[in-house]
Each structure stands twice: as structure tokens, then as C-alpha cells.
């Protein structure tokens, strides 16, 4: 089943790059949801087509959380913010893709030296997850809106998730669940903080004092 995983890996990187180059927030959330959905499929291909109950559970939890709940929270958040589109990214389209390409190259170059201990399904997992992480990072760096930064963070998490799947058998379940829970709570807390910021933002704007908040 390795080819499927390879395809998903490449798809993940590609989607991250697209996300990096997209300017509309709604579009970015959608791309993220698609990426998460594909990643949710990975556990199903892990053991050569044999789908265990545990695989299915992980796959479902991932899809529900990442492809469903998180985008929903973000959309909900977006509804509270009047502006729907990114005002202006720090880097333009061309430069973003160029930087992204460089980061992908770095990720692959680093992976050259790394020899996986033979039990990983695909040799593309490490470079692709690294690239996804770096691209997510890049998204955070180049975007000026808080929501887009959360999105970037989620892309990083997706990269990590992709890699974590390769360790699926090594890690005991409680830890794994703790990790997933943590990530969810992180996003949740971020959402709450964002909400507070928003309220504060509206309040201060109604009093006429516009706060200096990055660019947003």
C-alpha cells in the first residue's frame, strides 16, 4: 500500500504549498480541511491493507477533529471577525512559492542523511512531513492575520501527525491520545483567546482608539 501513502505525502506537501500561496482565509481553511482529510486516510493504509480497529479509530478521530471540528471552529471564529479575506500577506505569491520551494529542498536535503530503521512504509514520509512542518511555519511567518497563523500552526501539526503515524506501533495509546487532546485543547484555547481579542478589538474601536496589533 506504499504508493497510496506516497501519494498522500506528496499531496500534503502540495496542499501546504497551495495554502502558503492562498490569500483568502476561507480558501485556506478549506485547503486545510482537505489536507487533514487526506492525512486521516493514512492509518488505513499503514498495515498493508489490513485495517485494524485501532487504525479505524485513529482515522475517524483525526478526520472528525481536524477535518471537521477545527475548520468549524475557525469558520465560527471568522464569522465574528468582519473582514473575511487576508488584507495583505507579508510575502507575495511568487516569493512565497519560492521560499516554500527552498524549504522543501532543505527538508529533502536533510532527509538524505536520515536512514529510517526500515519499518516505515514509505521513504517519502520523513521529507514530506518535514516539508509540511516548514511550510506551515512559513505560513505563520508570512501571514498577518491571527486566524491564518492558527492555520499555519495546524499545518505544522499535520506534518507532525504524518510523521507520528510512522511510529504508530511504538507509541502507547495513552500518550497518543494525550497528544491529540493537547493539540485540540491548544486550538480551543487559541480560539478563546482570539475571541477575547476580538471583543476587545471591537470595544476599543468603538471608543475610537485603534489598537496597534500587528497588521490586523
Amino acid at each position, binding site marked *: 500500500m506504499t504508493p497510496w501513502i506516497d501519494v498522500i505525502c506528496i499531496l500534503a506537501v502540495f496542499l501546504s504549498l497551495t495554502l502558503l500561496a492562498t490569500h483568502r482565509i476561507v480558501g485556506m481553511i478549506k485547503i486545510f480541511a482537505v489536507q487533514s482529510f487526506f492525512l486521516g486516510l493514512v492509518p488505513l493504509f499503514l498495515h498493508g491493507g489490513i485495517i485494524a480497529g485501532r487504525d479505524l479509530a485513529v482515522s475517524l478521530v483525526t478526520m472528525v477533529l481536524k477535518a471537521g471540528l477545527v475548520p468549524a471552529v475557525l469558520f465560527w471564529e471568522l464569522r465574528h471577525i468582519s473582514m473575511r479575506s487576508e488584507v495583505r500577506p*507579508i510575502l507575495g505569491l511568487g516569493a512565497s512559492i519560492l521560499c516554500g520551494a527552498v*524549504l522543501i529542498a*532543505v527538508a529533502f536535503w*536533510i532527509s538524505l542523511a536520515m536512514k529510517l530503521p526500515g519499518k516505515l512504509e514509505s521513504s517519502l514520509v520523513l521529507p514530506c512531513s518535514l516539508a509540511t512542518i516548514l511550510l506551515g*511555519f*512559513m505560513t505563520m*511567518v508570512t501571514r*498577518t492575520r491571527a486566524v491564518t*497563523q492558527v492555520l499555519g500552526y495546524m499545518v505544522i501539526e499535520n506534518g507532525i501527525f504524518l510523521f507520528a503515524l510512522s511510529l504508530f506501533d511504538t507509541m502507547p495509546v495513552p500518550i497518543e491520545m494525550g497528544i491529540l487532546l493537547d493539540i485540540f485543547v491548544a486550538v480551543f484555547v487559541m480560539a478563546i483567546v482570539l475571541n477575547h481579542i476580538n471583543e476587545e478589538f471591537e470595544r476599543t474601536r468603538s471608543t475610537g482608539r485603534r489598537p496597534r496589533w*500587528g497588521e490586523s
Partner: protein
Amino acid sequence: MEKIFRGPWTVPFGECSLRLDPLNLVFLAAIVVLVLSSAIYGTGYLRPYRGKKPLGIHAFFYLVFMAAEKPAVRQAGFIYLIASHCATFFLFLMFFLMAHAAGSMDFDVMARTDFPQAVAALAFLLALAGFGVKAGFLPTHIWLPYAHPAAPAHISALLSGIAIKMGIYGICRVLWIVKTLPGWCGYTLLALGIVSGLMGVLYALGQHELKRLLAYHSIENIGIIAVGLGVGLLGRSHQVPFLAVLGFGGALLHVVNHALFKGLLFLGAGSVIHRTHSGEMDHLGGLAKTMPWTAGFFLAGALSICGLPLFNGFVSEFLIYFGLFTGLRELPPEGVVACSLGILSLALMGALALACFSKVYGIVFLGKPRTDIKTDGTPEGTPFSMLLPMAILAALCLWIGLVPQSVTGLIFGGGTYLAHTDAFAVRLGTVLGPLATVVRMALLFLALILGLVLLRRLFLGTKPLPVRETWSCGFVAVSSRIQYTSASFARMIVELMKNILLFRRRGGQVTGVFPGKAHMKSSVHDASEEMIFRPGLALSNEISKKLGHSRIRYTQLYLMYILLFLVFLLIWKLK
């Protein structure tokens, strides 16, 4: 001679032990005398201030700067704070360096170690940097003229007499521990001493405030001490033990002497300020009439600090000169050049110090009062508790000047200890003999003075002599304001050196046939303060302000730093 006390105490570095050896004996002697006299003085001096803030405690922590009103004083204090902070760490770096090379943190073990040249040189430089700040070497001396005047007189005496000597003590200790110093160290120390001494006395000459002037003289005397140490070090590194003992001994004696006469001078200045509430020399004058005792003691201090015969300053300078002249004969050519420079600068320091103290004494104590000095009208006005310490110190100055044999044991003990040589191998007789003759000549001199006074009495008879006004060449409308002031007295020397001294003069131009009122202001500024430290501080402000403005607080930027660092590490470490 050597005693060690060990305490049952663990500090984070090991245990705590105290020791007594010939070196700290010398410093202890100075400390005990000066602390005692200052304590007595303080009881009288602080009486009018009772109930106010205890400034003295502040002074001990040098925080006196910070409480000051003037921004310049605070800035100097700030510079000192920074410098001494650096100094502390330099010293510890030096200590660790030596400990690392010696394999132990015990001074005794270190002293037995033969350090590699590089370590020795580095330790020496660190010691100079570290202790130099405390001692007030140029160019890190700038805190000193602010700090010492700010404190009450007896504290100033302690600061000047003892606190800065701790820096000298530290250097001595390092010289003792590190036996294998390279040859250039002696030259460095000598050069540092020459520069500090000359600049110190030149700056002093340009001052108008009594205690500030005295503070600059501390820098000069530290310079003389450093010249002595440099000579000693030259002697040690060229294997001329006699020279080494002379240099170190002279320097140590000057440490003691300086504590005595500078203490005396500060106490005297304190009495003047106590009485007149002013330390501005150009406001004072004629105090010898109203405060005869203080004037007398101050004169003793002035004679001592100028290194004139009969007083202690001459003895220590004699030893250092003797060392330098000996160096002319026994050192290699570069040493001869260094010694010649040393002699010349000592001579110049002596002449300038003489000019400076004739100015101080003449302006403050002689002539007529330049302004209405508010005094309470009592004959002396200085309480006995303030006079007694001055008397003690003056007596000690005279004692060492007339009976130097009483301290040579102590001094040369310290000198041989520092020189790491055997006392018997040294031709001490060749210097003790002349010293004895000097003393005999001094006594003869006193006898001659007595004789001439008697002769004069014989000529003049006992009838009271006529007293008139000073003859002012026919000019009748004489006011006391017309007298020479401290600024005008020093003007010729200061103008000759104006490129070094940053001499500034404003106004003073008289124009027209019937000139109106004119105003003139002249002042001397510290070059290292004005040209190095203040601009440096301003520059650092400027830079950090620029950085502060360009400091963008965007999260994106924060994240980018992390990304860059991560990528940097990945590329650096995994290549």
C-alpha cells in the same frame, strides 16, 4: 611574620581563610591609623549634621553618587558602577585563570606554581583592568573626583587613603603570586604610573574646588605608587633584586605615606569646609589667621605630598628615585630609557605638585578672604576632636620623615616579600646609609633654621615691629578681590597643557574705551571623561534607541527568528 587563620566555614567555593603576611601588614598599618583618626574626626565633624541622613553609609557603597542632585555626578557614579562591575568579573576571570593553571584555588599553591607566560601575562592584564578601576588609574579614574568630594571629609579621607589602596593591594598580591611575569609587564606598570601621575597632577592644578583637587592628587599618588611597583617589577624580571626591593619598598612606603598625608589633607579640607561652608578656593583666603592650627597641619600635609624633605613624602619618593637611578646603571637599554622617563616624570610631578599645593595653601590659607566668609567668630572654630586626628597624622608624617628607620623594616619586609628574594642577598645598606645621611641633613637643617631664627632675633631685638598694609606699588583702592585666584595662579601651566587638559575659557574680552562689566569663566575638563566615557555612554544610548525604534513587535518576526534558527541548526549540525 606569616600567620594564617582558617575559619570553619563553607562558602560556595570552598573554605574561608585569613592570613597575615608582610604585604598586608603594610596596608593594615595604614588602615588602622587612618580609620582611628577618621573616627575621632567624625565625632566632631558630623555634630552639626546630627539627625540628618547618614550619608557616610551611602558613601561606603559608593551609592552616594546616586543620591546626588547633579546629573554629572550621577553619571560618573553610574560609570563607576559599571566599571567596578566589569572589574569584579575581570578579577574573577583572572583568579579562575590562575586557579586553572595552578590546579588549585589556594593562593599558596598558586604562589608556588610557575605559570606559563601567556597565563601570567593575561592574569596581569586582567589584574590591571580589574584593580585599576578601584585604584583609579587613568583612564578609568573618572569616578574618583566625583566620589571623594561627595562624601563627608573623614569618609573622603578613608576613601582616598584606603579604599583606592585596595586596588594597589590587589595588584601587589597578583605580582606576588605570579612570579613569571613577562618583561613588558614592568614597563606597562611604569607607563601607567607615569601617565596617571602626570595627568592626575595636571588635572588637579586646574581644579577650583578643594576636595576635588585633593581627589585628583590621589590619582597622582597612585601613579607614583605604580611607578614604584613598575620599578620593582623591572628589577624582579631582570634579576636585580636590589632594584626590586627598592621599587616595591618605595611603593609600599608611599602607600602608607599617602594614606597619612592625604588623610590629613582631607581632614584639613573638611575643617575648612566645616568652618566656611565652602570648598571653592576662589571664595576663600586668609584662613591661616582665623584657623591657625588647621593651617599648620594642612601645611604639614602639603609639604608631605610635595615630597619635600623633613616629611614622609620625601622618603618614599627618595626610595623610588633611588631605584630609578639604580635602574639607569643596572638595566638593559630599554630599561634605562624607561627609568629615565620615570625620573623625569617624577620630577615633573614633584614640580607640578609643588605648584599645585603652593596654590592651594596660598589661596586658601594666606592672603585675605576673597569673599565674606561666614564664620562664627571663634578663634579657631574647629573642635578639638577634629584637631587631634590632624595633629596625630601630621606628627606621623613628620615622624616618618625624620626617623624613616622606624618603618624601613616593615617596608623592606614587604618589598623583599614581593621581590621573592632573600633579604640578606640584597645590598640594603647602600640605600639605608644615604637615608640616614638624609635624616642627619634634615636635622642639621632644622638646627640651622633655629640658628638663623635666633640670629634674626638678635638683629631685630625684642621690640615690636611696625605693621603696615601690603605695599601695592602705589595703588590705593585695593580690594581683596584683586588678589591672585587659584585659576589665575595655575593659568600659565594649564594653558601650556591645554591640548591635553581640555582647558575651556569663555568671556573675558574687554572692549571699548570705557569697558563695561565683563565676565570670564575658565575650567579644566577631564579628557578621558569628555572624550571617552561620556561619548561612549551617549553612543550606547543612541544605538540602543535606534534598535528600540526598529524593534518591531510582530509575531511573524518572532516566528521567523525561530524558523531561521531551526534551519540554521539543521544545516550547521547535520551537514
